[in-house]
């Protein structure tokens, strides 16, 4: 199979082919990561504006009036607050947490880990990125339309999202662009998921059985299966919503609605149908965001603890169980929605059950630390931070999973604190861990570890200061998606909101350390060796950065699983997956 066409030098290509419409999965992976970097910056700036407004609603935000006509004189109006919130949530969920850990890191690393030259369908891969890019532009365009950006939240509940301009500012072109953007995004992710699945199934190198796949590859593979199903449902849902908006159909809009003094020309639709379709996608989506994190943590932990992951098969089984269960729990977002109260109990049970595999995985990670010889690289720290935050967010999930308690906490800041811990911060920590870990492979240079550690410590404290108090607010009945707290019983919450705002601005500022480190290291970092972390998987057998065809015309042959640490191998206390040596008895058995 070492045919002559697989020479290591990239064939001479035009600039466009090489950097813009590249078919190389590594370039595409970086494009995805760069896109999500732009997206996360945008999303973060939006969250600052929201936080400043929540802390000091009547103070003008310097400069804002000049860029956003909706915020006259720099003071955020209630509708503009909701728009900022909607765009923040949408950008973060779709264009950061779906693209960065899955499409970005996955695209760069997965093929290297299974010893493939590229994706199964490089052209689809390129299309997938550019379609995502278009979706992002369409979403951003919503900022600049006359009726203002959409304000119905990232969940876009009908009928607010379905009836058009009558429903108030943001519900005109802004909302239409939102629906179109998400529909386009679905197409991109479907192409991407299809590609990941086919690649993992068909392009594994010799000896790379399923059982020998690294945990991160497993996680990306499972994520792509979830994504395939989830986005196949969101796309039809968006099409139906779009038709309700522009073609006058009535899928989601019932009869007899009077909005802005106008009897709406719709009849018979079901608002709950949108909620069911949306959450059938929406809950699995949070696992699309977090599963790559599970994989990345499980992949990095052995390398930084210098011992095998505890229960490797169990971890994979847990990820599969979670993926499966994630399709049975969507109703837990709808306990208060007016659906049949009996179904609340039905949805509550799998929701609580899903905590079992999650708890098992957490215990296995913590158990892996036992007796380790831990190297506290920045990547390691973010893994540890991930575990801590995942525990915190997971535990607050216990409350929300019970309909009786959710009837108090639903719609409050408790929910905001919960999903930011599990889905926001934990996933972000997974992305950070992956970035610090694989950066040397991507750019052939090391990131600065001292800056990395500062970045970690300050971020870790910061996120707890932001999101833990939100749980207290929720307990006190503080409602989310409010642009100001003028209700009498919520007025007392303002000081705590100010504290959160200060913490958010601080944590945001800390990310500048990361940006600086990222850009400086890209060009000035220390030159990276092939395998800086003494890790065992295939991506560390090729040069940093890898050549165009990944393994320089070679096809690596795999003899071992990815979990051979703490053994006496020829390179040290681990055995490379492609090392032909036989497995020695594990050190610990002695």
């Amino acid at each position, binding site marked *: 199979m070492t045919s002559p066409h697989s020479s290591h030098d990239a064939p001479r290509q035009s600039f466009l082919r090489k950097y813009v419409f590249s078919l190389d999965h590594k370039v595409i992976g970086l494009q995805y990561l760069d896109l999500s970097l732009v997206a996360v910056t945008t999303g973060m700036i939006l969250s600052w504006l929201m936080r400043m407004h929540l802390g000091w609603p009547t103070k003008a935000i310097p400069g804002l009036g000049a860029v956003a006509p909706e915020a006259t004189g720099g003071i955020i109006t209630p509708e503009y607050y909701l728009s900022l919130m909607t765009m923040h949530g949408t950008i973060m969920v779709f264009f950061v947490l779906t693209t960065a850990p899955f499409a970005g890191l996955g695209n760069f690393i997965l093929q290297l880990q299974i010893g493939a030259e590229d994706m199964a369908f490089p052209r689809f891969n390129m299309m997938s990125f550019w379609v995502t890019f278009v979706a992002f532009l369409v979403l951003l365009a919503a900022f600049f339309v006359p009726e203002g950006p959409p304000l119905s939240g990232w969940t876009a509940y009908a009928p607010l999202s379905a009836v058009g301009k009558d429903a108030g500012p943001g519900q005109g072109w802004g909302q239409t662009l939102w629906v179109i953007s998400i529909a386009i995004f679905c197409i991109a992710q479907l192409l991407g998921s*299809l590609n990941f699945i086919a690649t993992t199934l*068909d392009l594994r190198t*010799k000896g790379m059985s399923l059982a020998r796949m690294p945990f991160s590859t497993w996680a990306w593979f499972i994520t792509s299966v979830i994504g395939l199903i989830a*986005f*196949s449902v969101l796309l*039809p849902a968006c*099409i139906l919503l779009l038709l309700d908006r522009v073609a*006058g159909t009535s899928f989601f809009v019932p009869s007899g609605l009077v909005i802005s003094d106008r009897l709406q020309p719709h009849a018979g639709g079901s608002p709950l149908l949108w909620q069911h379709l949306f959450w059938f996608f929406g809950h699995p989506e949070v696992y699309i965001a977090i599963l790559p994190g599970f994989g990345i943590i499980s992949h990095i932990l052995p390398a930084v603890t210098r011992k095998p992951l505890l229960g490797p098969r169990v971890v994979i089984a847990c990820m599969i169980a979670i993926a499966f269960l994630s399709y049975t729990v969507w109703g837990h977002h709808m306990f208060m929605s007016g659906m049949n109260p009996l179904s609340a109990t039905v949805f509550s049970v799998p929701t609580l059950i899903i905590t079992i595999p999650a708890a098992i995985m957490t215990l296995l990670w913590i158990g892996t630390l036992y007796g380790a010889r831990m190297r506290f690289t920045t990547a390691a720290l973010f893994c540890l931070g991930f575990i801590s935050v995942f525990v915190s967010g997971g535990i607050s999930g216990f409350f929300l999973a019970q309909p009786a308690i959710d009837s108090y906490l639903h719609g409050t800041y408790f929910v905001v604190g919960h999903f930011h811990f599990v889905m926001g911060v934990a996933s972000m920590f997974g992305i950070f861990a992956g970035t610090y870990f694989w950066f040397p492979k991507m750019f052939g240079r090391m990131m600065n570890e001292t800056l990395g550690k500062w970045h970690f410590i300050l971020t870790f404290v910061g996120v707890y200061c932001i999101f833990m108090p939100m749980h207290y607010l929720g307990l006190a009945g503080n409602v989310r998606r409010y642009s100001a707290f003028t209700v009498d019983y919520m007025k007392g919450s303002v000081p705590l909101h100010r504290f959160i705002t200060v913490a958010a601005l601080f944590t945001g500022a800390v990310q500048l350390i990361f940006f600086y480190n990222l850009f400086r290291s890209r060009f000035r970092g220390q030159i990276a060796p092939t395998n800086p972390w003494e890790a065992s998987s295939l991506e560390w057998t090729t040069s940093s950065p890898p050549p165009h065809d990944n393994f320089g015309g070679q096809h690596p042959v795999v003899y071992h699983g990815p979990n051979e640490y703490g053994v006496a191998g020829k390179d040290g206390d681990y055995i490379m997956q492609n090392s032909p040596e036989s497995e020695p008895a594990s050190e610990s058995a002695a």
Partner: protein
Amino acid sequence: MNSLSLESRPEPARTGVWVGIAAISMSFAAYTSALIVRQGANPDWVHFRLPPILFLNTLVVLASSVTLYVAPVGRPRESQLAELPAVRARREINWLYVTLGLGLLFLLGQVIAWRDLSSQGFTLASSPSSSFFYLLTAAHGLHLLGGLGGLLYVAHRVARSSESQALRAYRAASLYWHFMAALWVYIFVLLAVRI
């Protein structure tokens, strides 16, 4: 353990089509459940007679599947892949063009069905049942159009060379086409039962 060695390399194109089939099935399952929920939600569902031409269209799309199946180029054994003489492949391609023609005919028939229906006053927005009618037929039609493009592309490739890659792509594309025919039968039955 190692059943997936390079020698007996699986066909990514085929895997891709199977995965695509799974995704498309899932979205039509979503449309179906939306239809059932919407029909049950309110008593405003209007039953109407499906345009008779749909029966003809069903026959056409099934026939296109058959002509694709009988085209021997679509079914060479793994062992024959490499040896299939280019000339023969080119000859068999004619069957493929029959399939493409039937596919276009089907789409034309669907357009006629739409015009028939709209001339009776059933438009996209006029009732929930007609909304779903247009929606399902249009979604299927778009997917089928994609299949036409795919077939055309691989036909072009096979006509130029009979290298095994091209033939594999061709087999994958025809798998997709058969699925399109099956999907139409499903939609047709669904519409017949519900509308």
